[in-house]
Structure formats: C-alpha cells, structure tokens
C-alpha cells in the first residue's frame, strides 16, 4: 500500500514543554487509524502539525509523497475537523456547509444534507445555537461529506449521547466501505471505538510507544485470572512479563506479555487459571502509565 503520510523525527515544543519528541511514523492509504494517548500526550499537536496549523521545531512531514508543510495541493486532500471551535459563531450550519463544499473538491452536498437529516441537525441554526453534541455532529457531517483522501477527526463524539455515538460509528463504517479512504480518529473513548480501528497509534508524553494493528496489539498480551498464589508462582517460574495486575482478596488478574510458552499454557488448565484477551483500553491504560516504558522495551 502507498504511504499517505510519512513523518520523520518530528519535534515540537511550547516554551520549555516538549509536546512531541522526535516522532516518526508512516500511515498507509485506505485504513482507519485510532490515535490514542492521555491528555497532553501530543495528539492534537500532531494533528495540527500534519495540517500546517502548527509548525514543528524540527523533523519532516510528507503528505501524498510531497513535502507536507504549507503545501496547498496536499492540504486540500485533507479534511481535519478539530476538537476546538474554528467556525464563526454567527454563521448558519447551511452556510458552513456551503463554504465547506467550495473548499473541499470532493465534497458531496447531497450526502451532507442526508447526514444532517440522519443526525437531526437543523441546517438553519446558527453555530452558536448548537449544543456541544451538535457541534460534534456538524464536524462529523463535514468530515464525512468532504470525501477527502485523508480525513482527521479530533474527538469526533465529544458531547454525543450513546445513540449519537453509535450512529457515528455505523455511518463511518458504511461510508468507509463504500468509499475507502484514510481516517485518523483521535479519541478517549477507546473501548467503544476500538472495533472500527484497523491500526492504533499510541502516544505517551510526546513519543510514539506503540503502532500496530489492533489485532496484533491485543495479541501481544493476555489476561490471566485465578488464585493469587498460583498465579504468582506460575509467573515467577516462567518469568512472565507482568504488564499490570489487579488483586481482589485471594484472586488476582494479571496482564502478561504474550505469547505464553506451551508448557505454561498446559499448566493453566491444571491450576484453574482463566485466560482472556486483553482489551485495547486496558492495554492503553497500562502502556500510558507514567512509570511504564515502551511496549517493545517491556516485552523484549
């Protein structure tokens, strides 16, 4: 697959605070990427750098094979709907959509109107009259209708109720199936959006700590649960790397690096230890804990 975005040693500081530290990554076309990280991990900074809304201290960005900074040709193939409000408060939704249609070459106005109906967004309303949830819906409508080669959503479901979020995920998947293109979705709602991501990019304190398919990430660790003493003994004997543990009385649940040795797997049944796949959110929480290093370092 072709690389749609190539970032090399990208760094960005705000005064003495390093928001991004020599970050390198490559995104392929036609995938849905989840951009994950705790507050202040550098997600929004990264998205703003990709779209030339901020400028890096060092490093390079290539979009669609061309230099990406201030490159209008490349930028017009990107639609980035930010978390922050960049729309004029007095402008009506209808006008915002009209302007969006004039700026994004592949914008589908009929589809935008259909999405407004589907999400019950009144196009006659002024932006300032929209609730936080409807502001998010407007961004979703623009992002999906733009049909840009690279569509970026920063917290697209902020303020949306459960039904609205579910509708967004279903609409996104349907739209992506019909017109495959690349999406980057930055979100804190990991569990409910994990199923739509093909790959996850995990940032921690401005550095990339993991980037792989969600499936592979999940395969890299496993949750063992059972009696605490038996688990501790097993972990110690097989020298398993424990990523996290939760103790409840005599029971314990440990997330350990996978794959497990065959002997160990056989022993699990004997010792009545359950084995379950780890959730992306669980893995994310563990990986981004302040005291924890990169995934690769821990399991190596």
């Amino acid at each position: 697959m072709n690389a749609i975005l190539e970032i090399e040693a990208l760094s960005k500081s705000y005064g003495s605070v390093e928001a991004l530290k020599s970050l390198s990554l490559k995104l392929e076309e036609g995938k849905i990427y989840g951009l994950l990280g705790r507050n202040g991990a550098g997600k929004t900074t990264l998205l703003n750098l990709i779209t030339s809304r901020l400028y890096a201290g060092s490093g390079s960005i290539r979009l669609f094979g061309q230099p990406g900074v201030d490159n209008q040709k490349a930028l017009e193939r990107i639609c980035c709907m930010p978390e922050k409000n960049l729309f004029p408060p007095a402008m009506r939704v209808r006008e915002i959509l009209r302007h969006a249609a004039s700026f994004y070459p592949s914008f589908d106005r009929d589809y935008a109107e259909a999405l407004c109906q589907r999400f019950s967004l009144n196009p006659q309303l002024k932006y300032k009259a929209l609730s936080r949830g409807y502001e998010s819906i407007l961004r979703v409508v623009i992002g999906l209708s733009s049909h840009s080669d690279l569509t970026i959503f920063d917290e697209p479901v902020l303020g949306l109720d459960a039904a609205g979020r579910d509708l967004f995920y279903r609409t996104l998947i349907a739209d992506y199936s019909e017109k495959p293109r690349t999406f980057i979705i930055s979100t804190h709602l990991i569990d409910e959006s994990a199923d739509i991501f093909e790959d996850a990019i995990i940032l921690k304190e401005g550095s990339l700590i993991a980037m792989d398919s969600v499936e592979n990430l999940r395969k890299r660790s496993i949750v063992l649960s059972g009696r605490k003493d038996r688990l501790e003994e097993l972990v110690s004997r097989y020298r398993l790397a424990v990523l996290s543990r939760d103790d409840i009385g005599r029971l314990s649940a440990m997330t350990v690096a996978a794959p497990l040795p065959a002997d160990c797997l056989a022993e699990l049944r004997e010792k009545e230890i359950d084995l379950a796949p780890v959730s992306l959110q669980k893995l994310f929480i563990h990986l981004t804990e302040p005291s924890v290093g990169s995934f690769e370092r821990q399991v190596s």
Partner: protein
Amino acid sequence: MSANHRLLRCTRYLLASVFKPCLVFLGIYLLAAYGLPLLLRVTTTGSITYTPFGPNSMISSVVFLFAGAIFLFVGSYAGFREDYNFLLAMSNTWSNQYGAALLRTAAVAAGFTAVSFLMGWFERLFNQVVGLSQINDPGVISTYVYPLNGHQPYSLAGEILLVFAAFLTVFLFGQTAAVFSYRWGARFTVAFWILFGTSYIFLPIMTGTSEGFRRFAMWFLGEGGRDTLINVGWHLLVVSALLIALTGLGMRRLPQNA
C-alpha cells in the same frame, strides 16, 4: 482545484464575511446622515437651518471618511480571528489567506471610496456641500475633501487616491494589529491598545517638542506642497505598503491560536 481558484475562494469568503456588516454600517450611516436631519431640522429666522448636529451643518461625505475609517479599523481588527480560524479549518495555508486578505482589503477600500464619491456627488446634486465656505460656490469641483478651485483633472485623481489610500491604510492597520494580537496574545493586545488609545496625547506633544517630528508630520500631511492631495495619498500608500509587509511578516507561518 488550482492555487488561484483556492485564492479566489478564500477572497470570496472574506468578502462575504464583511458584506453584511458593511451593509448594516452603510444603512445606519445613511439614515443618520440624511434621514435624521431631514426629520429633525428646524428652520428659524433668516437662512440658518438647525439640525441635531448644529446650525447649518449636515453629516455628509466628509464625515463618512472618518466614520468609515473607524468602522474599517475596528471591523478588520475584530474579524480577523474568526476568518483566519475558519479558513484554517477549511484546509487553507497561511500564504493563501494572506493573499486573500490583501485582495479583500483592496476591494473593500475601493468599495468605500466609491460610496464616498457617490455620496459626494449626491451632495453636489442637492447642493449640500461640505463646508460653509463651499455653499453655493460654483467653482467647487471637489466632492468633499478640499474646496478645490481648479478644473485640473489631477485634482480629482488626487482626491480619489487620497480617499482610497486612507481607507486602505486604516483597514490594513486594523488587520496588522489583529495579526499580531493573534500571534502574541494578550501581551501585544494590551500594549497596542494602551499606545493607540493614548496616541492622541503624545503625538501632539511630540509635534510640539520635537522639531524633526513636527517637520515630518507637516511633510506627511502635505503642508506647503503644491499637490497636497496627491502627496498625502502617496504617503498613505507608502504606509499601506509598509503595513502589507508587516502583515506578511506577522502572518508568515501563523499558527492556529483558537
């Protein structure tokens, strides 16, 4: 979409964003300038006409120059943030936005100049000229700025140049201040407004205390020259060029500040 198309679309958006405020301003101005005096004027003995604005006075096109300048300055300052953020959200580069902002500035200044002159010509039509000295003076060909007595074509050209350059300068001045406020935030904004707000105190003091500054001010305002209008017009155009360069520096790689 070619780069030129993109530039034109940005310009069209920027023009659309100022269209309604300009229309409202013009409506209010015309109402105040011509509607109120017509409704409220009282003619007393002799030929003196009293209006809410004093005896024998009419708000007219010359006042429009000042009112329009204040409106353009405030408007360009206040509107920059919203426009810049929106065009960023629509995937436009700073350089595209800079070009569009300049085109919009020129178009708005030209529009306001045209309105001023239309207003002036209407005043001539109804024999309502600006100053008392101009009333019933058939030799006056000026619309409003100076009571020009000649029939030289360059007089009118000078007047057009002056009015256009004046509107251009104030619009750019507001825009330049807004760009730096956007870039540097409260530090610049506070300093700028303190300096700007007190300039009416220290500029006259400087004129009185510094001979060099006084001579510069006199030269800038075209005092003593033969073609005052053209001179002042060109001086303002030079100031505009400096402001364009300054805006360019301020907008260069201007990061989002929302």
